[in-house]
């Protein structure tokens, strides 16, 4: 009996040491906090082969979750890939630190116009990772008319055949854009109007998802879905009946940056990883895996026509012109957005 107990103890203690493997790795590590399915993980393996730095991967599903986790777990993350509208807030709250661009020479490969976005005009804090738009993915076998406006999401013909996006800024944003307002408005009346619209639409929605949408659309589960361009491309690859459009009322254009938290323990390793990701061949490889729009000019050159001829991944200028970037909102306005979003979520 005692022997059994001591054996169990021994096994348990051995097992318990294993999960720490990542954290206590003999060599260097870098802790990356990213969206699900937003990186070709073989790239991490290549990185480790070349530099000996092991990559610990952690995932989040929404920006809100990410912001919270970064706040309450100081030191846990070295490289984070948030959405652009979070960066302003992260800068003002001192959550991220300036990068040492001497360690990131490959930064020159980034498309010049994307090197200095609104939220980081002196390019001190971020390096763009991927960019894209928000739009509607639709199944041409189920939707016979031309799709060019957000209004189709309110069309009764497609009741229970529409997948909405469970992301606060994006969904509130599309309703605001549909009404002709800015996605960054502080005006309560405009927000209320958007909320009312979304609540009216809820019975037509099949579900509110984030990650599940692309597989569901690829499987032909719904007629219309609100999606980011990259997810749309993934689904279109799997199902040739799908098409993507950025509605005429305008939408959101986003650049997901790579940033380093102020409390990061492995800053240099993170910078090395950023530099690695900006290398033309790596950026190309990553882009071809994730299939989102790449900010890396050299990588685009390597990809050639496959990339440049694709209107979804490489939108024409008029599409870009009618899109807005998200900006950060002051706390009491953010509360407003959150409250209205709660009203939408809880409407039955």
């Amino acid at each position, binding site marked *: *009996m005692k022997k059994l107990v001591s054996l*169990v*103890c021994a*096994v*348990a*203690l051995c*097992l*318990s040491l*294993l*999960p*720490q493997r*990542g*954290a206590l790795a003999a060599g260097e590590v870098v*802790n990356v*906090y990213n969206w*699900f*399915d937003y990186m070709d993980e073989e790239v991490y393996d290549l990185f480790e082969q070349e530099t000996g730095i092991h990559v*610990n991967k*952690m*995932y*989040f*599903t929404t920006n809100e979750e990410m912001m919270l*986790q970064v706040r*309450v*777990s100081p*030191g*846990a993350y070295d490289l984070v890939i948030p959405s652009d509208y979070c960066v302003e807030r992260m800068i003002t709250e001192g959550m991220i630190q300036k990068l040492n661009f001497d360690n990131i020479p490959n930064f020159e490969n980034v498309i010049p116009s994307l090197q200095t976005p609104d939220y980081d005009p002196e390019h001190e804090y971020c390096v763009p990772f991927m960019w894209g738009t928000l739009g509607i993915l639709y199944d041409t076998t189920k939707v016979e008319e031309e799709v060019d406006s957000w209004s189709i999401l309110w069309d009764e013909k497609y009741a229970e055949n529409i997948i909405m996006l469970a992301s606060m800024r994006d969904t509130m944003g599309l309703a605001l854009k549909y009404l002709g307002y800015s996605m960054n408005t502080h005006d309560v009346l405009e927000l209320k109007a958007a909320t009312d619209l979304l609540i009216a639409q809820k019975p037509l929605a099949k579900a509110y998802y*984030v*990650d*599940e949408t692309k*597989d*569901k659309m690829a499987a032909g589960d719904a007629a219309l879905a609100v999606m980011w361009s990259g997810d749309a491309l993934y689904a279109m690859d799997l199902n040739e009946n799908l098409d993507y459009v950025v509605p005429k009322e305008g939408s959101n254009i986003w650049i997901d940056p790579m940033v380093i938290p102020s409390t990061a323990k492995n800053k240099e390793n993170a910078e090395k990883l950023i530099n690695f990701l900006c290398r033309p061949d790596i950026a190309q490889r990553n882009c071809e895996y994730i299939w989102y729009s790449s900010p890396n000019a050299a990588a685009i050159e390597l990809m050639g026509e496959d990339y440049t001829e694709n209107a979804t991944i490489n939108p024409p200028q008029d599409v870009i012109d009618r899109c807005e970037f998200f900006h950060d909102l002051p706390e009491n306005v953010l509360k407003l957005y959150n409250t209205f979003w709660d009203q939408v979520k809880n409407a039955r």
Partner: protein
Amino acid sequence: MKIIKRFYVGLILFFLYIPIVVLIVQSFNAGKSRAKWEGFSLHWYEELFRDPNIVNSLIVTLSIALLAALFSTIIGTLAAIGIHAMRKKPQQLMLTLNNIPMTMPDIVTGISLMLLFIFTQVERGYFTMLLAHITFDIPYVILSVMPKLKQMNKHSYEAALDLGATPSYALTHVILPEVMPGVITGALLAFTLSLDDFTISYFTTSPLVQNLSTLIYSQARKGIKPTMNALSAIMFVALLALLLLVNKRSSKQEN
């Protein structure tokens, strides 16, 4: 009448098991589709073991369950012995206190522990998850050991002391053997509870350390991968075996 009764129970069992059976059958489906059968294959089982996330989380789950069972059994058994020997009033108090972790909804336990760790600035991860598991396991151990203590002769311990035994000797050679069946049941109970826990683990761990349940949850929100089916099949069989084992033990005890 009898037939109707049998049929009724059979029907309910049927509904309980259909999803599980379908899942297990699907795990052998060579294709990804949920409705079409594309041939028998062990492909998803291979994928399962090759997926580092799943293997890691399995290790986390098993090790936490083992360690939590171990520590909670030790603390719980000692506690049960102590509580059993208390006078009525303190005993009532302790038993009521003991009820609290069991009756608190998982979500509140998880949140309150999360707040504790944040407040004391302890970084959430493997260690905090383990502490949380031990916390909710102990009451069940106590509940398993107490009945055995009640069955024990009230005076054995003191008799042993009178005969010259030291307290620790009396503990290990008089009390422990008597309550051992309860201790083992408690340990198994704690192990099974920890194996299965989701809500409490969800709040008390970090994104890097995932146990099986939290991994499944985060992946399920993306869409069910066929490897999940293979996982379910394995877990189901393992659980069945474990339960048959526990059942054999308890029927042996009763005889």
